[in-house]
């Protein structure tokens, strides 16, 4: 059977996100309890989490989480890392044996900074340098896969039900100001850990429920800009689109949302002139990055979360607010499981980006 990346595998899913806008911490264990409620939306073939603010002691270093198929892949990859980064700390990611999470690869974590002279020589912006290193490992080093590469954040994922994956990674030992979680329902059994979600690049992480019908149009466009869609998943291409639009082209997240879930032309025509002109420009300039078909996504980034539905709202997604806390979920039940008393529960409209950020200075 072909593994993830050699074949495109559609999947349904469950997603949950949480953020404390005052900068207070949320325990990873809460996310495990929330996503466990939506057990039936996953089928045991993938689960994962991303936490923000979880590595305060290393907050200025890039935290790489890497899967290795074996020790030779690890040696090759570490030689590469040593040539490109100053590795401040490295260790196995702590895990607990779990009866339903099996066939684990070697899972390692590195806190690093790009080697200054190397960085200066290649004349790249620091983040671009890191992206290129990640791309190089993921496309050229057999058996090595970087699945998290941001600062003060980290993704944790595996083949299994998400609640089992959370226990496996001992997430109740992590605390962060924002989290996303994902349970996967793929339509066949690739059984590869790299294929689970979230998909993360630098500090962007995406969890996604849906199947975008525009996939190959999006992929072929974004690959013009040096990205390689090695996993053939929606989540991967959406992450690259966000990286391209926000980091490389300088759009705001809201503008990026207006590209990915652009309003219909008839809606654009009804807007006041300034907004109409902006939306028209974005659709014309980035038409090939429009996502069609059902999706609900949560985008994690340093300092916040964005929730976005496709423009027809073909996937469920609700938001619950309680004081400084915001919870976003495929189903309200998952939110109520960890936070029964909510001030407000609402569903964003199709194509309407809901962006929540931690207060400045918090």
């Amino acid at each position, binding site marked *: 059977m072909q593994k993830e990346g050699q074949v*495109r595998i*559609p*999947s*349904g899913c469950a997603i949950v996100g949480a953020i404390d806008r005052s900068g207070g911490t949320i325990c990873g264990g809460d996310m495990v309890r929330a996503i466990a409620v939506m057990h039936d939306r996953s089928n045991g073939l993938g689960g994962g989490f991303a936490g923000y603010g979880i590595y305060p002691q290393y907050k200025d270093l890039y935290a790489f989480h890497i899967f290795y198929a074996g020790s030779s892949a690890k040696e090759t990859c570490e030689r590469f890392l040593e040539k490109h980064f100053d590795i401040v700390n490295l260790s196995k990611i702590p895990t607990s044996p779990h009866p339903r999470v099996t066939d684990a690869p070697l899972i390692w974590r590195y806190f690093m900074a790009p080697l200054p002279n190397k960085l200066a020589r290649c004349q790249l912006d620091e983040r671009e340098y890191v992206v290129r290193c990640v791309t190089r490992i993921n496309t050229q080093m057999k058996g090595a896969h970087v699945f998290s590469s941001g600062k003060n954040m980290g993704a944790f994922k595996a083949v299994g039900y998400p609640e089992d994956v959370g226990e496996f990674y001992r997430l109740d030992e992590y605390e962060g100001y924002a989290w996303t979680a994902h349970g996967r329902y793929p*339509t066949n059994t690739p059984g590869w850990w790299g294929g689970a979600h979230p998909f993360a690049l630098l500090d962007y992480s995406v969890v996604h429920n*849906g*199947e*975008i*019908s*525009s*996939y*190959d*149009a*999006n992929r*072929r*466009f974004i*690959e*013009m*800009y040096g990205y390689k869609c090695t996993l053939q998943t929606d989540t991967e291409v959406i992450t690259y689109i966000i990286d391209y639009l926000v980091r490389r*082209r*300088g*759009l705001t997240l809201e*503008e990026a949302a207006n590209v990915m879930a*652009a309003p*219909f*032309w*008839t809606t654009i025509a009804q807007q006041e002139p*300034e907004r109409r*002109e*902006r939306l*028209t*420009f*974005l659709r*014309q*300039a*980035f*038409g*090939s990055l*429009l*996502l*069609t*078909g*059902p999706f609900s996504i949560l985008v994690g980034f340093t300092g916040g979360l964005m929730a976005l539905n496709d*423009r*027809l709202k*073909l996937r469920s997604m609700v938001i619950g607010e309680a004081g400084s806390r915001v919870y976003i979920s495929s189903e309200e039940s998952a939110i109520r499981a960890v936070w029964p008393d909510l001030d407000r529960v609402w569903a964003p409209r199709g194509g309407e980006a809901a962006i929540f950020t931690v207060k400045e200075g918090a």
Partner: protein
Amino acid sequence: MSLMNTFPSRFEVVRDMDKCIACGRCVVECGHGVHRFVKGTKKLAADERRCVNCYRCVAACPTGALKIIPNRQAVNESSNWSAANRREIALQAESGGVLLSGMGTVKNYPLYWDKLLINAAQVTNPSIDPLREPMETRTYLGRSAAEIRRDGSGRLISDLPPHLTLETPILFAAMSYGAISYPCHEALARAATELGTFYNTGEGGLHPDLYRYGAHTIVQVASGRFGVHRRYLEAGAAVEIKIGQGAKPGIGGHLAGAKNVGDISRTRMIPEGTDAISPAPHHDIYSIEDLRQLVYSLKEATRYEKPVLVKIAAVHNVAAIASGIARSGADIIVIDGLRGGTGAAPTQTRDNVGIPIELALAAVDARLREEGIRNHVGLVASGTIRNSADIVKAIALGADAVAIGTAALIAMGCHMCHSCHTGNCSWGICTQRPELVRRLDPDEAKAHLVNLVTAWTREIKELMGGMGINSIEALRGNRLMLRGVGLTDAELRILGVRHAGE
């Protein structure tokens, strides 16, 4: 004895004498002079050698007495020497001339459209019902790569270069006034206006009465520069430089002197009755850097307010050529495939030069993406777009839009007798004989064009909805929505699609 007189005609004219009332309608209707009264009698006779099976007499006969059938006369032919080969040899042995043909090639080259299958959504994502949900076919044609710039208050500055806005991704292909009749041009202009798309003047200039449809007109500048002047360039919504045409790559246009009469010669700005022969190359374009100069000359002339298209024939190294054009400042590239139509072309060129549009389109789209410049140009494909499924497949392969010529002619009444070059079209389409031109009602022709494009647009929306796609840009270049059947590995690789079942 004339060789052609010793060669059997292609068709037989079968007249049912029980039904025929000898009204002589067929004599009047036939543009090719097949039917006549036997001198001094009320008896009708037919010169079958002149018959091209245009169906006009059959359609017009008030009693249904006529039928045109393939000649039953046995012709000696073999697997290697067809009757057509023999007829052409006889014709040339007699005339010493170059064989001419009208419309697209009749040879049996692979039609990749029919070997590509379209996907549909099932279970994992929903199909979308175009009757109940919005389904967008609006297409912006032109350069879409833009710098992100903001003003002092952080607002995005929209500074995309000029482009064409199409309500449906279907253009009318370039067909000149002269090759086709005035009412045809009028019908195309009015239909394009009503549909929110564009027609194309071809290289015959623009009749003064049609300037009012300029907002939906692409004005062409071809190697002969016929009819090109300042007002002409300003009248159109865009300017097209025609380098080549799928039916006759490598050679210029030819309008016989007999068709170059009256308003046609005035519009082309050449003496009446002269052959309008446009040179094979543009004599100011001997290389790609020369093309750039012409592109910018036209942009200067139109104050950078109009996009410039460059139309080329699909030839062997079309991908590299298109890449060069994309870097020449052109906003849109039109690629016309091997099977594209023409008013007149040397038969051997029409039937043997160029490559199929499907392969050319796939190669160009892939090449422009490899070079990271696909969004620097719009891409239009033409040359045998026969139905809405062909359009969906073309867009999934990578086109922004398609252009239709032959299909538009058929909608206006063409019966594909492949005799456009004779100027005797009985249907009033490809002729300038006033008594024939009169037959084409521009109101009716316009209505048929509007109906056809409207119907195809509906079908495109159905097919898109079936795939779960509700906007045409999400289909563009979306090759995963296609699978090949019965194709070789090389064909699949070039088309960039997987085989059905994969």
